[in-house]
């Protein structure tokens, strides 16, 4: 295992320190329990937005702390959901009388740990809401399973809920926008190579020299199928079609699109992939109103990409364009 790392134990803390050092104007790091919060608290009774999850998906979530997006992020160990102490402390820190919204990716561990924290905060009279993100169409949905995994749409939920919260909206309103966004987005990812969790020290899964995994999860969870290496365009086809179908996209729909790298994917390749994403959507009469291409929700050193498509009406588009100033997403500021 070759990584820029000092010790496995200090890895996540040191990365948080580095983030806070690089963006001290935006983010401060609380070590015990571990969370990242805005360097300057927003004024007024703003709804506090807290997200979090296992580390290894950077810039998610710490890179999205800042004005117009999250108030705090709780980084767990690598690929392990954070513990309730973290969300409890972060929630308490950002709760300003306006209530707190937890944005939780739909993984059993995350859900349970955030739930425990919510119980603790509610016991203190804090109004805590939770929105689940469950957008990964690689997973066939079913009511008696854990549901879909939360992946790329988390970025959109954090941005749009963040924008409406920044405008001073009520907890009900922020929760509504978060849920609406959560329901309007779908994703699917693929891997060219496995990631390697530092504590394990060897790849999570093995792929042959000419094999790829379609529908992979952001922790290297196996996906829909393992198949032969095909061209970028074919790979994009296999991601985009299920996403578009599941979203029920029709001619005339407007979408915000993210062509996302898994951590080790060169940007030049992401642009090659994005070209075909754009071609496919335009070819179906869908209008791409905004695009993100880059590393936004990663899987450590996995090579591969994912596609997220969000159906955006004027409300969501307006919130998208609202100013945001975080380490990883910035405009209008």
């Amino acid at each position, binding site marked *: 295992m070759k990584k820029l790392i000092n010790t496995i134990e200090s890895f996540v803390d040191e990365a948080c320190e580095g983030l806070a050092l690089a963006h001290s104007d935006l983010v401060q790091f609380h070590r015990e329990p571990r969370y990242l919060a805005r360097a300057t608290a927003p004024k007024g009774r703003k709804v506090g937005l807290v997200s979090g999850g296992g580390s290894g998906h950077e810039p998610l979530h710490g890179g999205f702390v800042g004005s117009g997006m999250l108030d705090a992020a709780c980084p767990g160990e690598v690929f392990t959901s954070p513990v309730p102490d973290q969300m409890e402390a972060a929630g308490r820190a950002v709760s300003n009388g306006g209530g707190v919204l937890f944005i939780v990716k739909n993984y059993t561990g995350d859900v*349970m740990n955030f739930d425990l924290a919510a119980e603790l905060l509610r016991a203190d009279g804090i109004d805590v809401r939770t929105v689940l993100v469950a957008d990964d169409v690689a997973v066939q949905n079913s009511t008696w399973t854990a549901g879909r995994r939360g992946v790329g749409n988390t970025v959109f939920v954090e941005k749009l809920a963040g924008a409406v919260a920044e405008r001073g909206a009520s907890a009900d309103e922020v929760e509504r926008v978060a849920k609406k966004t959560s329901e309007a987005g779908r994703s699917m990812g693929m891997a060219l190579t496995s990631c390697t*969790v530092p504590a394990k020290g060897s790849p999570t899964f093995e792929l042959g020299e000419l094999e790829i995994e379609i529908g992979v999860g952001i922790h290297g969870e196996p996906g829909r199928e393992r198949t032969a290496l095909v061209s970028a365009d074919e790979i994009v086809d296999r991601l985009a079609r299920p996403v578009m179908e599941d979203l029920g996209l029709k001619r005339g729909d407007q979408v915000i699109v993210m062509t996302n790298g898994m951590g080790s994917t060169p940007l030049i390749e992401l642009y090659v992939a994005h070209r075909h994403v754009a071609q496919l959507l335009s070819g179906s009469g869908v209008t791409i109103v905004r695009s993100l291409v880059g590393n936004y929700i990663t899987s450590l050193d996995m090579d591969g990409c994912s596609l997220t498509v969000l159906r955006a009406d004027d409300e969501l588009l307006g919130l998208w364009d609202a100013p945001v100033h975080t380490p990883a997403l910035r405009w209008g500021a």
Partner: protein
Amino acid sequence: MVVAADMRRFVERFAELIEQNADTLTELDAAIGDADHGINMRRGVRAVLERLGDEPTPGAVLKTVATTLISKVGGASGPLYGTAFLRASAAAGSKESLDDADLAALFSAALEGLRQRGGAQAEDKTMIDAFAPAVGAFETALAQGHPRKDALQAARSAAYAGSDATIDLVARKGRASYLGERSRGHRDPGSFSTALLFDAAASTLSGDGP
């Protein structure tokens, strides 16, 4: 009778088994999850050993384990095992020593906590599939008049057998459920750590000293 010292030995033995099997647990999780179950459990039991002090009662020992697991493990297993230990601790109350019935109540409270926290049923391919048979075997053996030692052995065997049986199941809860049919053919990692838990219990809670 099980006193605080026995309960501490149980926890220490569980920690030892986790250390020895951490890589196996992680490998199992790599196949159908995210390759961290061994790492999570090891982080948890190490923190438990550091925090365990001179708790006066079995229930207090269990409480320390519970809060430490909840605040150190994360993932699915942290809140699940944490809740199980918390309920077990509540069942043990402030008693200085536990008899067979107390132990049975404690196991069944733990199982109930697991069920409530995770919402999983039998055959969802989770730790429940080791935990529930173990608790069932323990109760049955006691009811049949077997000594606690044998009942614990029965629980241990049932837990391992339950874990074995997860191999053929399709996961419906936790990370492995995302795989659907592809989860079949692999052992559920949490069921194996649960088997280790009952293994540790069998060798430490028989009530006849170390």
